[in-house]
């Protein structure tokens, strides 16, 4: 497989996963705010702020927007093209990547991405954000799920498939970490411990990961921070838990290199094995209290470095400035 193709498969999957996760977060937050008794912009912003921080988007948001109402933030996270991780930017980037390799992916995969992009462009941002349009969020989530289904059922389970799995699962692991991070920011904000609020926040976090029902099946008692963290970080069978995603990435990487998982054949595999061991064998006390912030942060860092190692090993290509390149492709069109 061409390195460039592997790179595009990886990013296509990653961007789609990112769009889905952002929509999930916005949806859950809007739903939670609907339930809150004091609804003014200040309360709302206090609620959004940790989410923006955990996504690393707070500074950009504050430079782009002077108003901080309940409409502006979703608008920023979904429709703003200046925000490179907004849903529309992600889906557009996923589509560009898919377009570059459309001869390599199934036409079903391409068409569902293209259709969703065209649909998204037609949506009215104001209506979606003001009405907290449930069907809009559902549409994007179902798109991502449909896409993953099509990958499973229409795309040969060969090396390209593994790159898709790597992209999706690295992103998913990263986003689960960031949602847990958001709770961390929320903790810092409240001075007095408010059990009801705390409970509502943890519930929102579980729902943000589609994990509420799965969690309930394991932990029947009240929703407790330590349990939620344990579940989202280390569940062996819940597909959005960090450990599960990392294990899936490991399977895919070793399927590509054909090296058994007990060894490693490149730096990416070594780093990943180390990270899995760190999480798997972490002291229970590292998973709660003050230590957990450090652990999550170090997982996020490791994930970033592993992605770099993967790209060094499999996708090495010279960096080309896309703007400059686009300029030339226009002038070099042959006899049309």
């Amino acid at each position: 497989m061409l390195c460039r193709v592997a790179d595009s498969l990886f990013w296509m999957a990653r961007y789609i996963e990112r769009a889905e996760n952002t929509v999930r977060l916005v949806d859950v937050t809007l739903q939670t705010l609907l339930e809150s008794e004091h609804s003014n912009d200040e309360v709302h912003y206090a609620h959004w702020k940790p989410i923006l921080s955990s996504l690393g988007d707070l500074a950009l948001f504050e430079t782009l927007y002077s108003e901080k109402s309940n409409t502006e933030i979703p608008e920023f996270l979904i429709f703003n093209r200046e925000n490179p991780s907004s849903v529309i930017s992600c889906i557009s980037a996923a589509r560009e990547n898919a377009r570059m390799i459309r001869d390599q992916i199934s036409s079903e995969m391409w068409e569902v991405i293209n259709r969703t992009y065209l649909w998204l462009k037609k949506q009215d941002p104001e209506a979606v954000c003001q009405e907290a349009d449930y069907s809009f969020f559902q549409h994007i989530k179902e798109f991502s799920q449909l896409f993953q289904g099509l990958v499973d059922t229409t795309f040969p389970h060969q090396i390209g498939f593994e790159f898709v799995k790597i992209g999706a699962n690295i992103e998913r692991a990263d986003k689960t970490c960031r949602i847990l991070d958001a709770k961390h920011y929320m903790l810092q904000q409240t001075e007095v411990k408010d059990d009801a609020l705390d409970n509502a926040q943890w519930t929102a976090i579980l729902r943000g990961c589609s994990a509420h029902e799965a969690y309930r099946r394991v932990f029947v008692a009240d929703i407790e921070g330590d349990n939620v963290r344990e579940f989202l970080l280390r569940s062996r069978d819940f597909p959005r838990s960090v450990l599960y995603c990392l294990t899936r990435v490991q399977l895919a990487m070793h399927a590509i290199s054909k090296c058994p998982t007990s060894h490693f054949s490149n730096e990416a595999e070594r780093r990943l094995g180390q990270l899995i061991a760190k999480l798997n064998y972490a002291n229970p006390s590292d998973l709660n209290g003050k230590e957990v912030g450090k652990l999550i942060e170090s997982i996020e860092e490791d994930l970033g470095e592993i992605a770099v190692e993967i790209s060094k090993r499999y996708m090495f290509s010279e960096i080309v400035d896309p703007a400059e390149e686009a300029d030339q492709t226009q002038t070099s069109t042959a006899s049309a």
Partner: protein
Amino acid sequence: MQIKYDTGPFYDEAFDKQGTPRPHYQNFIERLDELTEAEFNRKREAIDLSFLQQGITFTVYGNQESTERIFPFDMIPRIIPKTEWDHLALGLEQRLKALNLFLNDVYHEQKIIKDGVVPAEVLNSSKHFRKEIMGLDVPRDIYIHICGTDLIRDDDGQYLVLEDNGRCPSGVSYMIENRQAMKRAFPRFFPKAGVRAVLDYPEKLLSALQYIAPNGKRNPTVAVLTPGVYNSAYFEHCFLARQMGVEIVEGRDLMVDSDDCVYMRTTEGLKQVDVLYRRIDDDFIDPEVFRKDSLLGVPGLVRAYKKGNLGLANALGTGVADDKVMYCFVPDMIKYYLGEDAILPNVETWLPYRKADLDYVLENADKLVIKAANEAGGYGMLIGPHATKKEVEEFKAKVKAAPREFIAQTPISLSRHPTYCDEGFGGRHIDLRPYIICGEKTRIIPGGLTRVALKKGSLVVNSSQGGGSKDTWVLNADS
């Protein structure tokens, strides 16, 4: 639905001067009679939607943000009866044969120049004449492997050659997709219509590409070289790669190693490439030899080509035959190399680089079509009778400043064809681009891309300027 409109002073493809359908259109018009307007529109909308969803689009430049559009498709097919097609096929084959002989000659002994048939000054001033490949023997002596000759018809229905497109002719994917769309739209009628197949184009292309593998290598690795996703024809590059089952590569996917062979970068390491179907112009293909600032090409590619380690289709330097000034000499080439008269005539053309022609062109600019000699896609063109005084004057100044860069032709009013437009059916001007593949044998694909100027009265069929397309049916019989 009934087609009824005034055919006017033009040659209409479907109706004679009395308004009676020509025999080869009879069947289709009867089928159309059975359809209600609502049924017709349903079929039409289904086709448009499927084009958009499949992303069968092209990119329009010039606006601030380049935009993707579908190439508008018209459901009324252009139909060509057998005898007429056989004549065209002979003419096209003859022309391509002469062009390939000409290219081989100008890059070797230049006999045609020495014998004074083509003036040396025309050759030496041709932008696309590549001195870099003088004396190089290309595999199987074929230069133009894929040709997309543009044909038009005049008031009397006579076919004329408008240009040869021997560099990287595009549009063949639309020929194939249009056919698929028509088969879906008329699933019961189509099999009975006696239409010759075009869908095997990719297989024919692949075998022509394999034929030029270095040293006759068996099972060579073939790839399509594209400028990338931002190119207006990117959809087509992918489409062909996919249909042929070969890799599509960009310049950055390839490298030329110290052994002067071309390799692609894969996740398993470097893999040698034997033949490239390149859709990048000469200028951009190798920064070591041509434009130094090209990021699209592959440094060293020409080196590998010259060492005989790479087959390239089309060959380097074919643009010299594509030059619109050189076009005027094609009938002379046919005479010179084949000893035959051209079966398909050219459009009457003036060459302003000759003093007498220049005077004529300047005097009659408002009655002529003036074209840049080396532009494509309908850019850089003046249609005198439709232009304002100011536009004509501006163009005259350009021609005066660089006479070699322009040609002038009598406006041909292009045949018209029934087309579904805003006001119902009307006659719209069309042209035809058949595709010719030259490998072990020369194959004329029975069909091609019929482009139609959708704007009423317009003569410009290019997709970038409001053109659309039709499926082209070549029949097994004459009616």
